[in-house]
């Protein structure tokens, strides 16, 4: 594995988006992973629709019938991938733009599918496996405890104590080997995470969090997706 890796350098990551006042982080995480996977499959970076997931994905967990993707009220990336396998894929952002509300009806047009899921997997809690899957399959959809993100401005976040209850969906796009950790007086490796709160939040919309001990649960819900090539009408 390379010591440093960043899918942004490979052109596999779209610009930072903004979910607005809507609990749709899961849809941004899922679409970001598919954007990266589609880039690997086709060589083209397409911005994909989160609103389609917000409006149309009401997929439920087979083991919990009452736990379903619910637009601005929350969802889960893996059930979003299940929906995408069933529905055929995601339209582009341009064809099905984001509104930040979930009151509308589903306007999914199958003839406008821009990217399709071939398969998805969940990755074990093992930072080497997470890094390997990141490098091999593209950006990964992950869950995180966002408690420190409300006040985050920049730097490598490495809190002494952080809950591992996951409440936010984000996109893991890379890692670095040498973020300075003042409390440890040495360089510490970190993950690079794309968030969906706009470019004015964090480091131009990104968050860096230290690697090594599942800080804020960052290693505990990781999923990877592969895409199939589609032709757009």
């Amino acid at each position: 594995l390379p010591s440093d890796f960043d899918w942004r350098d490979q052109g596999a990551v779209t610009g930072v988006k903004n979910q607005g006042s809507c609990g749709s982080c899961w849809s941004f995480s899922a679409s970001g992973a598919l954007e990266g996977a589609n880039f690997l499959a086709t060589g083209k970076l397409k911005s994909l629709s989160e609103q389609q997931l917000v409006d149309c994905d009401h997929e439920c967990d087979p083991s919990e019938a009452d736990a379903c993707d619910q637009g601005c009220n929350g969802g889960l990336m893996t059930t979003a991938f299940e929906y995408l396998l069933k529905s055929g894929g995601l339209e582009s952002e341009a064809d099905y733009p984001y509104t930040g509300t979930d009151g509308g009806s589903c306007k999914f047009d199958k003839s406008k599918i821009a990217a399709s899921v071939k398969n998805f997997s969940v990755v074990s809690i093992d930072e080497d496996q997470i890094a390997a899957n990141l490098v091999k399959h593209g950006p990964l959809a992950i869950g995180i405890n966002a408690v420190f993100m409300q006040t985050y401005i920049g730097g490598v976040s490495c809190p002494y104590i952080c809950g591992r209850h996951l409440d936010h969906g984000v996109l893991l796009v890379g890692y670095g080997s040498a973020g300075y950790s003042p409390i440890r007086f040495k360089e510490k490796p970190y993950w690079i995470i794309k968030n969906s709160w706009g470019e004015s939040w964090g480091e131009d919309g990104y968050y860096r969090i230290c690697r090594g001990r599942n800080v804020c649960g960052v290693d505990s819900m990781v999923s990877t997706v592969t895409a199939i090539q589609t032709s757009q009408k």
Partner: protein
Amino acid sequence: AAVVEAEAEDPLILQVVPDAKEEGGFGGGGGGLGLGAAAVEAHFVSFERRFGRSYASAEERAHRRSVFAANLRRARRHQRLDPGAVHGVTQFSDLTPAEFRRAFLGLRRKKGSVGGSILGSSHEAPILPTND
């Protein structure tokens, strides 16, 4: 010069140096905790301007200002717990933690999952070689 050099080498020292002029981050010092009402008001006015906030009534503004003051203290706590990052005023500084969770988070945690993978799931990723 010795003090400056010591601070440069040991950023922990910087954590306890109050700097009421700090508007955004608190990586360099105090901000927030222990600020007087006038200083909090100045920070809040700056926040309103920076993030284009306007509130429906004076009561609502007063409430948001109190939430903002609490978030300054919270940012300071976060700074102490997370010294490698910079914490401070963000676009969410007038929201309570509960409001923040409701409006900007939304990951539904699957019950019965272990390590993000459902036991017995056919979607568990195969182990990849990592030594090359």
